């Protein structure tokens, strides 16, 4: 009897050990994030003020704020999403709902998107420069930067949306068809709402990538730090501003820290907003419990 208990103790310790390791790893991952946030706050919080957020940069960014940079960033993001979202989501709907999985067309489109997802952003930058800025004559502008970003976002938006649509159980499609609903109505009233959280998650990933993008914008939207007057003006994105401050501007470290803090907080806010939106949509239209 005694022996049995001693033998049985080992799995118990092993479980405890594994549990401990898992907790430690989770702690480590969160700690990295906390550390980055803390470091940014330590370096940038003192420089942060309302004036910093609304003023335009002066003296190459050493003085002044990031008002114009923020406006440019949001405009670039807006252009990118306006161009990419409709294209990406219709492509995803086509791939998931209208084209057989094994068809040559679907395989080709998916393969090219995968290749596109692996292309380094600097290559997108060069392509955007050659195509949008030079060939289409948009020059260094927010429009050409946004369109370049749109190309970069396509694969991520398409693949998440397609995965989301495919995850919707086939029984919904069959029931809807058996009720005489058209495929389009099924897509809009049933499949898209069910897949909405995944679509929102993909959108989030896309925004995260777009807002933090530097290399692709270097040759397309340029780095003029004035307040943009129109979409055809050059505008400096926030990530590019941070890059420029820390690499090219002696004494620009503090504003760089502050700008980075703003960027991270912005990302956090967008994340939380999108989560809330997705959750709200799920509660309103989709009722799972």
């Amino acid at each position, binding site marked *: 009897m005694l022996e049995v208990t001693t033998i049985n103790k080992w799995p118990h310790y092993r479980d405890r050990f594994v549990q401990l390791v898992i907790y430690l790893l989770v702690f480590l991952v969160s700690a990295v994030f906390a550390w980055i946030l803390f470091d940014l706050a330590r370096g940038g919080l003192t420089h942060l003020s309302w004036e910093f957020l609304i003023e335009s940069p002066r003296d190459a960014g050493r003085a002044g704020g990031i008002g114009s940079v923020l406006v440019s960033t949001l405009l670039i993001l807006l252009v990118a999403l306006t161009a990419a979202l409709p294209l990406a989501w219709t492509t995803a709907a086509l791939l998931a709902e209208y084209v057989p999985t094994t068809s040559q067309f679907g395989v080709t489109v998916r393969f090219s998107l995968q290749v596109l997802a692996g292309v380094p952003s600097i290559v997108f930058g060069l392509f955007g420069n050659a195509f949008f800025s030079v060939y289409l004559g948009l020059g260094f502008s927010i429009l050409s930067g946004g369109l370049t970003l749109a190309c970069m976002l396509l694969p991520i938006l398409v693949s998440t949306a397609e995965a989301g649509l495919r995850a919707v159980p086939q029984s919904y499609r069959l029931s809807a068809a058996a009720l*005489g609903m058209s495929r389009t109505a099924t897509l809009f009233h049933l499949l898209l709402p069910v897949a909405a959280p995944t679509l929102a998650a993909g959108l989030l990933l896309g925004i995260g990538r777009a807002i933090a993008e530097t290399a692709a914008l270097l040759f397309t939207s340029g780095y003029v730090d004035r307040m943009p007057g129109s979409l055809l003006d050059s505008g400096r994105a926030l990530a590019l501003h941070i890059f420029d401050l820390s690499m090219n501007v002696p004494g620009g470290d503090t504003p760089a820290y502050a700008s980075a803090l703003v960027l991270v907080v912005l990302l956090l806010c967008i994340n939380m907003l999108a989560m809330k939106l997705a959750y709200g949509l799920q509660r309103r239209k989709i009722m799972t419990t």
Partner: protein
Amino acid sequence: MNQTDNNRENPFTLGPLQMGPACCDPQPVIQVENLSLQYDGKTALDNVTLDIYRGCITALIGPSGCGKTSFLSAINRLTDLIPECKVQGCIRVDGRNIYEPTHNVQALRRQIGMVFQKPTPFPLSIRRNITLPLREHGITQRTQVETITEQVLSDVGLWDEVCDRLDTAALSLSGGQQQRLCIARALALNPQILLMDEPCSALDPIASGVVEDLICRLRGRYTIVIVTHNLAQARRIANYAAFFWVKERAGQLVEFGRCQHIFESPTHELTAAYVNGARG
């Protein structure tokens, strides 16, 4: 549209459903001729010829994999949704071949409702489960939609259970309630024919009994084709029975006739063996 409205006003649902007339005068509404069905080149159903009579309950019985479900989905052309599925032969509903390219599939599926093995309510509210297909078929007038919703939910005996929580999630209902909601959803479109693919097999005995009673009450008003593995159930509710069997890896119709005939004096020895529990 006008005709549809008239149909609505000619209500099968003013009161609780009552048993329809017995089908002593068989009148074919679905005529299946030489139906063969292939998935990816493999024959699932081979040369089935069979008439389904108006207002009657026809039970399809037989072992798993003998093509009963395929037969059902060929009747409302749900096979269109399955890639690599090929249907040969002819199915006439009210005398018109539904596999003619010009046939309106959506109208056909409105005419022929279907209930699946597992309850498949949409992850929407109870109300929207019924109104969504209605709106899709152009019935958008609010009062009309509400009347139909109440009628069909009363028909399936769900109204009293859910009338105070129509806007809660359909998935929060119990399994039996979900299945009755699915039947109500199908009835809302005022179909002539109901296809049921083992509607009770995913339910507990009590819920199963409730759904079975419901199916019996639908007799006469609707032509019902039901797949069931429960032979006792088939015997209780069906007027006609069709016995399918797998021969050379393809489903075939072995025998079709009045339920009593199939269960008590089958002509084919396979049928006799199956209904007596000796095989299958």
